[in-house]
């Protein structure tokens, strides 16, 4: 008997809302990706690079002090230890490998916090590709360190001055460029968003997070956790972690969003950047302005797979304020000696809330990246 696809599977596989100009490029990408999946030698080459270049597998660290304080067992999946400082390289390495595999010599990418831009710049350098990265002008400023890193890795950084000058406009700008240049450049999309086949491709390259974490937590505790917790902007880190646990009905999944950009919690269905998903929108169906102290979560939509999990009741979401995230960042640093990204700090705050309701249980927090890039934002917010 063939099982009916779940709502999250259907939403991820749905046809995109894309300009006809892009349809041929997306079809070619899907064919290229399927060819890659069938090519055992190519997959082995990429797997090798994850070990020898990206630094995988990343550890699962027990946060014993947090466990004591919160009343349970807390594990950290340490994507902050991936080369480049965030989980983004898992996907960028995969997509740049795919771009080279399909014969492209140039990649276009958008970036919010700059982590995907940095990861793309790193992967492009590794594969000898030219990288063009689009980043909102405000994000270029608030993530100056990442802007410098991208340039050092040889990428060309294009600050975007339209609209809110953050991730949403960076995506618009990068997609517009791709519409004009898709014959010579691949688009390296940073999250589980956008039109098919991107949500599925990005989740495929990120599910290594969950596959490792599931194995590691079984080894450490002898069982599965009560909950896996991750921050969600577009949702690539959460989708990667949750993918390995979605088939375990006893494992809860909690998506932690920025309160000012909480599409899973407050969004309604619509179309944005080629996908049909939960979107923050105005009564007149324009895309709403968003806010988060963390540039990586400052996005008005969310990947369709995660939206499907939320709609289907398989996953909960929680809106976390800037202050709660800052508290989470401080507590993790002080108690465990881990400086996480502001994005990941939303998941730390969410895990604390979850354990307060489920005392004694085990939870795994996805630490999507390290916090060095956020020190300026942190100091500004806390007034030191």
């Amino acid at each position, binding site marked *: 008997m063939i099982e009916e696809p779940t709502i999250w599977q259907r939403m991820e596989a749905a046809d*995109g809302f894309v300009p006809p100009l892009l*349809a041929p490029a997306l079809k070619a990408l899907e064919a290229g990706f399927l060819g890659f999946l069938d090519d055992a030698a190519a997959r082995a080459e990429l797997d090798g690079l994850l070990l020898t270049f990206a630094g995988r597998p990343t550890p699962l660290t027990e946060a014993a002090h947090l466990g004591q304080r919160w009343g349970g067992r807390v594990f950290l999946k340490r994507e902050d230890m991936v080369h480049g400082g965030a989980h983004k390289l898992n996907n960028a390495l995969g997509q740049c490998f795919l771009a080279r595999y399909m014969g492209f010599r140039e990649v276009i990418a958008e970036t919010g916090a700059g982590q995907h831009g940095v990861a793309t710049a790193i992967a492009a350098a590794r594969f000898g590709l030219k990288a063009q990265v689009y980043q909102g002008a405000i994000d270029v400023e608030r993530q100056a360190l990442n802007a410098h890193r991208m340039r050092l890795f040889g990428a060309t950084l294009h600050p975007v001055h339209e609209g809110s000058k953050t991730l949403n406009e960076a995506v618009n700008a990068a997609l517009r460029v791709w519409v004009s240049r898709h014959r010579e450049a691949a688009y390296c999309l940073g999250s589980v968003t956008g039109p098919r086949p991107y949500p599925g491709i990005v989740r495929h390259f990120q599910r290594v997070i969950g596959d490792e974490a599931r194995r590691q937590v079984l080894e450490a505790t002898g069982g599965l956790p009560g909950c896996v917790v991750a921050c969600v902007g577009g949702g690539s880190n959460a989708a990667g972690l949750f993918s390995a646990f979605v088939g375990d009905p006893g494992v809860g999944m909690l998506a932690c969003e920025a309160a000012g950009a909480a599409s899973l919690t407050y969004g309604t269905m619509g179309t944005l950047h080629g996908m049909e998903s939960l979107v923050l929108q105005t009564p007149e169906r324009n895309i709403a302005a968003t806010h988060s102290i963390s540039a990586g979560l400052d996005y008005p939509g969310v990947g369709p797979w995660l939206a499907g999990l939320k709609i289907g009741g398989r996953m909960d979401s929680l809106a976390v304020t800037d202050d709660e995230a800052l508290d989470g960042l401080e507590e993790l640093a002080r108690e465990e000696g881990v400086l996480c990204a502001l994005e990941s700090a939303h998941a730390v705050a969410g895990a604390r809330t979850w354990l307060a309701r489920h005392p004694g249980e085990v939870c795994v927090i996805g630490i999507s990246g390290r916090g060095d890039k956020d020190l300026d934002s942190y100091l500004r917010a806390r007034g030191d």
Partner: protein
Amino acid sequence: MRRMRVGIYFTLGDFGLDGSLGILQAAARAGAGLLEVGLPFSDPLLDGPVIQAGHQRALAGGEIPWDDVCAAVAEVRRTCGGALVSVMTASQLLYDPVRAGRLPQVDGILVTDIAWDRPSPVRLTSPRVWFLSQAVVMQDSFAMPPEPVSLVYLTRVQGITGADQRASGTTAEAVRRVRERTGAGLWLGFGASTREDIQAAAGDGADGVVIGSAFVAEMSRRGGAISAEAPAGERVRVLSEAAGEWVDRLVRE
């Protein structure tokens, strides 16, 4: 050589609803054969900087209620009888079927983010404008649309809208391939701005050319030169006159 028709694109609400209505009406009076009416949207994906700026101007004073947008579309249809009227919009604005159902009937609706071979997933109150790129038309698999079409809108270039785009060399062949499959009126758009572009399109066998960015840029320049203190009526009058002159010059030459 066949007689070419000239169409223009303008975003509703750019220079206010009254301003945009005046511009569209003046263009029709001056002989524009097609009015492509853009619905204002916060995130237009397909547009170059000139038309993006038009959307931003339209929304700068706050969102325009859907009922007002619909009333303005109806007004264009009622007062511009000599021209074909089509609406150009992102799917997001038509995502809610009840809302989409209130859009007045015009000659066609072009939804910018629906692939050419996909039946419209959003509700359309007018027949679809079949939006095609040359890359698609030149594919072996190119086939009839999944639903009736009112017009064919074929891109002259590969990229987004913008007067500086260079035309593809395959246009005549693409036009021929479309003609083999449908008798609907065929308009070329993207990257057209001059008399030479219109003549080239005629040589390629199209029925007309839609001019967007070059027209919007001219209106923006003329509108920007009007004093901020000028009464609203004066602004509408100056912009209407400018639109009429601009279209008249292209149509008459």
